[in-house]
């Protein structure tokens, strides 16, 4: 609850929030269009180091917007410490989820050819003579 602020301060916060969120969004979109070559066609950051830098920047801006919404619009900044921690700490589990699942996805992508090959593989015919494996009918009967 924002009880310690005056009404005028509260209204100023709302206006500041609108300006900050709007400005960050516009900066994000302009950088995105620039990095993808829509503003200057010869300059683009779609591969390699430039692309990583671009992605980090976008994630950073988004996390800042999320922080602003949660702490000022949702008044998390004025809640007691226990409530803040009980809401924010569980979300750190997502860091592991992101690492694990993205690793899984990349590994799947890297092995696509191998998976296709294995799917199309035809089993070798059973060698003639004594059947092997104890689940085969002949073996079960002894």
């Amino acid at each position, binding site marked *: 609850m*924002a009880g310690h602020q005056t009404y005028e301060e509260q209204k100023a916060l709302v206006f500041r929030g609108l300006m900050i969120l*709007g400005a960050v969004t516009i900066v994000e979109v302009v950088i995105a269009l620039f990095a*993808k070559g829509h503003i200057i066609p010869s300059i683009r950051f779609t591969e390699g180091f430039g692309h990583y830098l671009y992605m980090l920047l976008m994630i950073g801006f988004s996390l800042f917007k999320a922080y602003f919404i949660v702490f000022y619009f949702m008044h998390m900044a004025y809640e007691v410490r226990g409530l803040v921690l*009980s809401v924010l700490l569980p979300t750190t589990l997502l860091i592991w989820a992101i690492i694990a699942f993205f690793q899984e*996805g990349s590994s799947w992508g890297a092995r696509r050819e191998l998976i296709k090959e294995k799917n199309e593989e035809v089993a070798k015919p059973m060698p003639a003579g004594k059947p092997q494996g104890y689940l085969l009918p002949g073996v079960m009967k002894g």
Partner: protein
Amino acid sequence: MAETSVAHAHETHGQGDDPQLWEGAKEPFKASYGKLMMWYFLVSDAFTFAGFLIAYGALRFSMPTWPEPDFVFASFPFVKAHWPLVFVTFMTFVLIFSSVTMVRAVQEGHRENQRGVVFWMFLTILGGATFLGSQAYEWTTLIAAENMTVKQNPFGRHIADGIFLNEDGTEAKKPDGTPDTFHKGESYLLHMHPVRQSDGTMKDEFIQRKMKYTTGAYAGQTGIQELGPKAFGALFFFITGFHGFHVFSGVLFLSIIMINAASGLYAARKNGYEMVEKIGLYWHFVDLVWVFVFLVFYLL
């Protein structure tokens, strides 16, 4: 209860037996039950959305190509133009504005100003409805005009340099006589045309041109222009649909609470319009999720 008997109860039975405590006299984290539970609902909802968005990332990493967002999301109502990301930026601003009006409604609630609450909530509802309308336009364009569904995705990207081939296998030329080549990473949208079937009926089919790769590991391979990864369509409609459903239920609840506020129900409760504060938390969360949907689908 008289003060002396309360003090007595403390001594003999401990705090837990104070009847006022059982009525909720002491609030954990100094927040009311409803507000606290709204926070924990939002935590669980955040995990659901995070799960979906992480699935998007994992599937994207597992594919050799992925559609380029600034190519896919470039239509704008009433203009036949290729304006990458402009319309989704508009949608983002609609949500930011409706979040701001929601903050105002909560502030007016703390001041017990009934007219203010109703006015700002009405603007918030308007923002939510505008967002839903915009999403309806976006979906309609993708489904009806560009033939993307949960099961098919005509947006693709070339995985290597190459040249288009004619039906007879010779290298195609553009109308001006230059070779009809394409480059690695270039985006394309496959269009549908009616094709006569063997039983004489007409059926829409994608036009997939023959082509040959000229560089990289695929050099010399021929094939047809493939549809893009199917998962893209499914993930897009499922995740933006789930978010849109949150906006839709938000608009419903906002409407109910606005009507209640207008009827004087919350004024009578004299608790600073706490119900408005609770739906406010939910509404900001919907905006918060959009920040990440925007990041994952449209920016990266």
